[in-house]
Each structure stands twice: as C-alpha cells, then as structure tokens.
C-alpha cells in the first residue's frame, strides 16, 4: 500500500514538474524544482540504497522529458545520498525512530531548516552540472539562489496544504 502511495506521488510530481513547472521561469531565472519533495518526504528509516534508487529513477524520468539525460538524475541521487545525515542534524528525534519528515511531525522550524539545506544543495549541484555549456558566474549564482528559494516556497506550501487535510 505504501508502495502504491509512493508510485502515485512519483507520477503526480513527475507530470507536474515536466508539464507545468519546467516552463516556469520567473524573471527568466527561477524554476521551481518541486519534484524533490518526493525525496524529502520518504520515511526516515528508508534504507539509503532504496532512497538513492527512487531518487535516480525520478531524476532520470524528469531528464527523459526535458532532454537533459543524466542531469537531474545525478543531482537527485546526490540529494538522496546526503539526506539521512541532513535530516537527523535538523531534528531532535531518536535516529532509530521511523517517521515521515514534514511540518506536522517535525515542527515548522526544523522542517524549514531541513528543506532549506536540501533545496540549496540540490540547486547548487544541478546548476553546476548545467553550467558546462555556458559559464557565467553571475547568472549561475542568481540561478542557484532563485531556484532554491522558489523550490523551498513551493515545498513549504505543499506540505502545509497536506497537513491541513
């Protein structure tokens, strides 16, 4: 059942990302990368290898739609790899406890810090990999920070909305 639930979120976030969000460029720069919400929300006790497997599959699916093979896959795998230590650095909970990261469980400030660090790292890796074609430091920095900001806002909104239900 939890597997079907994951597949459902996987497909929804994938379609929303490739059909809507990939075409959003606020002020020519900021693109919300909402799909990493999937990686952030997997349970805290999910095995690291399973986590990376999901992240790689999701990243590659996004890549296939946006003609950037390997780009999102590499960044998402990296995010999944560093997620467990980031999660436990931001919460007081017992590392052996199994919970779904979110505002409801962790409290707003913990989840905010966790999501902030994750989106920032992800956006830095993604934009660095993307910068192989045209390297321009100013554009790169603007894009990194704005991408992370918009993504963070989207993730917090989505999580707050789900908590209300």
């Amino acid at each position, binding site marked *: 059942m939890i597997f079907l639930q994951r597949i459902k979120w996987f497909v929804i976030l994938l379609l929303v990302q490739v059909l809507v969000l990939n075409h959003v460029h606020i002020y020519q720069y900021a693109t919300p990368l909402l799909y990493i919400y999937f990686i952030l929300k997997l349970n805290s006790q999910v095995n690291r290898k399973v986590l990376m497997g999901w992240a790689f599959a999701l990243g590659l699916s996004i890549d296939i739609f946006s003609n950037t*093979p390997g780009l999102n896959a590499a960044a998402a795998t990296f995010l999944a790899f560093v997620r467990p230590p980031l999660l436990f650095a931001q919460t007081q909970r017992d590392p052996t406890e199994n919970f779904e990261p979110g505002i409801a469980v962790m409290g707003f400030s913990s989840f905010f810090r966790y999501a902030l660090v994750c989106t920032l790292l992800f956006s830095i890796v993604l934009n660095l990999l993307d910068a192989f074609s045209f390297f321009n430091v100013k554009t790169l920095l603007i894009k990194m920070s704005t991408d992370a900001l918009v993504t963070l806002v989207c993730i917090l909104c989505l999580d707050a909305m789900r908590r209300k239900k």
Partner: protein
Amino acid sequence: MRLRLYGYHTVSSSLFVYGGNRNPGSTDRNCLTLIPENQCIDVRNLINFIIKYDYWFLFVLLEIASFVLLFRFNNYQGSVFFSSANYVSGVIYETSHQVTQYFGLRGVNERLTARNVQLELEVENLSRQLAEYGKDTMAITRLRKEALQNYRIVDAHVVNNSVTQANNFITLDKGSADSIQPEMGVVCGNGIVGIVYLTASHHSIVLPVLNAKSNISCKIKRTSYFGILKWDGNSSQYAYLEDLPRHSEFALGDTVVTSGHSSVFPVGIPVGTVDDMSDSHDGLSYLLKIRLFTDFARLNDVQVIAPLNYGEQAVLEDSVKVLLNN
C-alpha cells in the same frame, strides 16, 4: 600454513564432523576456498566493511551512470530512448499540447490573418508585375517548379519547446515514419528554426539555433559574405554571426539568409537582420548581433525540408575529406 581447498560440500561435511567446535562465523568462509587460514579474518573484515558501506558503491555507480548519460547525449540512435522523443513521453507531451494549443489559438489566428492580408497584397502586386512582363507565363511556372523540385516539405507540429535553457531542444510530432531523418533543416513561416538532431519513429528532436551546439552557415543577403550563426545562451531573440572576414561589406539592418553551403538548408532562407556589430575576441573578424526573424518562444507549426537527393552533397564532401587525409 594450511590451504583450505574445499568446495562448498566438503566444508558442510566438515562442519558436520566438527559440530559445536566451530564458531558460527566459519560458514562465511565457504566462498573463500583458496585463502590461508590466518588471513581469513582480514578478508572477512574487508567484506564486512564493504557490506557496511555498500551505499557508497551504489552512490558512485548511479552518479557514473548519470554522468555517462550527461556527456554522451549524442547523435546515436540509442540515446533517443533517454529523450523526449521516446514513445511514452512523446505521447504525454502530445496530449498536453493538444490541450494547451487552444489557449494560443487567438494569437495564432490574428497572426495568420495579418499574414494572409500581407500575402494577398503581395500576390496582387506580383500578378500585376507578371501581367506587365508579358505573355510567357509558362516560363515562370517552370522556374518555380525547378527551384523547389529538389526539396520536399513535411509539415510538423511542435509538441515541446524551451527557450530559456542553456541547450534548448524542440520536439516535433513527426519522425522517421514520415521520412524525417537527422541533419534535415527545419524552418517556420518567418525563418529558420534549426536542424533535426534525433528521430524516433513518430517523434523527432530538433537542435534549434538556440543551442550551444548549433552551427549554421549564413550570409549577408546583399553582399554574400558568409559566416557562422551561433548562440550565446542569453536572449532567445538574438544570435551571433561569427567569422565574418574583416574586408566584408555590410550595414546595420541588412538581411541575413542561409548560405546554402551545407546540404542542410537551401540558399536564401531568411534568418534575421543585423542589429549590432563588434570585433571578434581575437580581432581577426567581425561579430554581428543578429535579430532573429523566428520567434522561438511561440513556435507552433514548422516545416521540415527534406532534400530529394538527400546525402549526395554530404557523401561528396566526406569523400573529399578522406582523400585529403590520405
């Protein structure tokens, strides 16, 4: 030093014989038949270490896979699977496009009407001129036929498009089943669009002018000096004409068209107008800023130009290169 040369069965039987004298870990050694006894413990530590940190290996493996894909997105057929021309993503984009294209219909209609009026005026003008030139109307028809007889035009719809990435691609709803092949030119009503990059059976990917890998040979229409059209990754309305010789003549506002030097585009397809000029980085040639006629941000219907003697010029040029290398 005793060597353990047992297979699996011998070890099981020896376990049976020794019974409780063995510690439980000894079964781990079943696979290590050729390793001396006093080194077994080290190897087991190594294996434990590998098992404990195996997510590192998975991480490195997945990253390597990603990077191979990232740097190998090339013009070979296998990579079509990892692009938006594969069947599933193609169908999804097509469905989405069928829904969203209605939102743009008003604008499309307005532009079509404007274009129609313009063309009608032009037709009227031309037919008046034609009437003045006299009776030989058959000659004009023949000339027009001759100009287009070497090309076949395939109409296609854009189902996915981007203009803000560093490397943009356009996905079309026609593929090799409609006899589209890589290296064919793509144009729209206003001007040049790009070159077909990959084809699947019912979809294809176009490398537009707005891509770092795009190189299209163009010339100033008035004076015929030619250079290479490149994109700098910024605005989708401008591209740059590079390698224009120092002695070439041009003026701001001149029209730039394709040169016809490559087998991809016929000569004379409109590209844009000269907007600004500067020296190239090495100072040996001019760098012209070109305002493109094509509005890539609202591209919808395009035409793929399929030469009938496809590949003849390319084969000829390749054979010359081979001769020169020998």
